[in-house]
């Protein structure tokens, strides 16, 4: 077939191909979020404990409000010893879960009202989701890779829960051959040691779910993070003193209650990772039925006895007068 008179040079076609291809790449990646990991040092030795920050970058004008993270780590090299929620931008749905057997850490939470990234002028790095605390068990390999699993997700703040375009940046830790024999206060232990501030004030509430009563509560601890909550019920004695019905028991929100608990005083103790405590008291929500009110019975009995004494005295007086 003879060549046509007009031919586009190959160089022009190649240029247009690269230009248009790049445009599609830019358009597809124009809104995104990025999950990434940070540690204070690139290398740790066996027996050393260190923390890994799990952070979220949001590229404006992206607006996200829910995060679910699945983090994998080499279970034979690292032991996940703890997880700190201190300074997280998330309100956690459940306590973060460490599955050492499978080398997995999982957590999920929301940012009420959405998150669009750090504000210009913010003096701190306020994009933290949580801190995973690891201990190096042994040096089997020279590196340990901590990575996000593909089912981690970030959802848009659009009222529909649409998934955001998400990229992951893993962390590779170098493991040195020299084992640490004497381990001075590591960064996590130091953070706990320095935390002298109890968890923040909070207000428990009672809610009904499916005809059952539950106690809901949530506190924050900006230093080492909340470790656990404990709940205790108390009742009032005849002398007006509060005596425990139950000891402080570990519990999560929402905490199931019996209907009888509504007539008792409830104490909720928030304890942070450093052992600092904040106890909040919830007064009885429902007044005690009159026939169960021992004070009332006590008054009635006293009045009856007084009445009998007065009547007896009156009768004696009448006899003497006769």
């Amino acid at each position, binding site marked *: 077939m003879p060549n046509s008179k007009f031919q586009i040079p190959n160089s022009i076609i190649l240029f247009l191909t690269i230009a248009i291809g790049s445009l599609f790449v830019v*358009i597809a990646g124009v809104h995104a979020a990025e999950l990434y990991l940070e540690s204070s040092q690139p290398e740790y030795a066996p027996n050393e404990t260190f923390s890994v920050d799990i952070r979220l970058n949001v590229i404006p004008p992206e607006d996200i409000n829910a995060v679910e993270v699945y983090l994998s780590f080499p279970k034979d090299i690292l032991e996940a010893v703890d997880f700190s929620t201190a300074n997280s931008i998330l309100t956690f749905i459940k306590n973060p879960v460490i599955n050492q057997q499978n080398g997995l850490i999982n957590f999920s939470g929301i940012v009420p009202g959405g998150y669009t990234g750090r504000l210009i002028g913010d003096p*701190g790095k306020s994009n933290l989701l949580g801190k995973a605390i690891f201990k190096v068990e042994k040096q089997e390999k020279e590196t340990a890779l901590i990575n996000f699993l593909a089912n981690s997700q970030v959802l848009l703040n659009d*009222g529909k829960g649409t998934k955001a375009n998400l990229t992951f940046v893993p962390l590779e830790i170098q493991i040195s051959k020299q084992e640490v024999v004497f381990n001075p206060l590591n960064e996590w232990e130091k953070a706990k040691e320095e935390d002298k501030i109890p968890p923040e004030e909070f207000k428990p509430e009672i809610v009904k779910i499916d005809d059952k009563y539950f106690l809901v509560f949530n506190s924050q601890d900006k230093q080492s993070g909340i470790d656990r909550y404990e709940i205790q019920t108390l009742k009032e004695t005849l002398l007006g003193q509060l005596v425990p019905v139950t000891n402080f028991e570990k519990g999560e929100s929402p905490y199931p209650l019996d209907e009888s608990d509504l007539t008792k005083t409830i104490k909720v103790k928030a304890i942070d990772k450093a052992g600092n405590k904040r106890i909040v008291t919830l007064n009885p929500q429902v007044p005690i039925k009159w026939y169960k009110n021992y004070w009332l019975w006590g008054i009635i009995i006293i009045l009856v006895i007084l009445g009998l004494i007065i009547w007896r005295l009156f009768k004696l007086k009448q006899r003497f007068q006769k």
Partner: protein
Amino acid sequence: MSQNKFRLLFTLVIFTGIIGSCLTPFNFVYAAINTNINATVRITICGNNIKETGEDCDGTDLAGKNCLDFGFTGGTLQCLPSCDFDTSNCTTGGGGGGGGGVPSLSPTAVRLSGKAYPLSKVSVLKDGQLAITTIAGPDANFNVSIEGLSAGNYMFAVYGEDDAGRRSSLFTFPIYITPGVTTNISGIFLPPTIDVDKTQVKKGDNINIFGKSTPDSDISIVVQSDQEYSGKIKSDANGIYLYKFDTTPLDFGDHYTKSKAALNGDLTSYSKVVSFAVGTKTVLKTSKITCPKADLNGDCRVNLVDFSVAAYWYKRPLSASFKSLETERLNGDGKVDLVDFSIMAYYWTG
């Protein structure tokens, strides 16, 4: 490479790009819906001994001023923990001296200021829970402080409520609170409230789009359909705006509208989105304020209580009674998962 191979390569790239763009939704439209502009917010720290914009002084930094600059003849000018000048130790007779303030100890606090609507209730959430409320002035300005904080990262959210009980969308921002200083966050400009007078409008009739914002601000109204229609109107001296939109160009079906305000170069993010339908007859909207979606306990708020109710059912088989609530108030897929919590976070009121 031959010409034909180049053409084949070109065609493949275009084809792949088109398919990829269809699978990864074009977000130019979504960008318009979800744009969250924080261009006006400024952060300064009172208590760091550096006078910043919006502060008269800061600790030992008196901006080169002394008592003489305030009409006194002597004494010691100082700086209050609020970063305002303290002339209480300035004198009007005898004695030299001038500047050189004594550093004042600031509490660890945050101060938020900005614009809402005239005499509106402004609520501030700290980490998702209601921390404080205040009332904006007749000029729509508000100023509120939260003290007794410990240092660390906080998520603050601010919203306004007009006199008809309509709430604005949340204006959220993360901030690190430095110990022993007052962090000032100024320039907050809350998005307008918005509502419509009809749930369904007869095609060709007008629908009234109205709400409240800062007085004398430029309100941009957007009506979203297959294409976007926009209009502008100015709010009056009370911050009220009312825009009559002719529905002639709209197709039958569901549409939605939103607004934003501009004043003196500052811009709000978009308001909440309000939906309406175009049909063959008009149905007026009742004046009753509807409770937000994701309100699971019927108190017209979406807060920690609703969150805890949903958390109970998270990854758990739903009871028959909760299933109907999930259908009505969440995404109705018969389970409680991250998507439902995302919906809840969107409608959060604290």
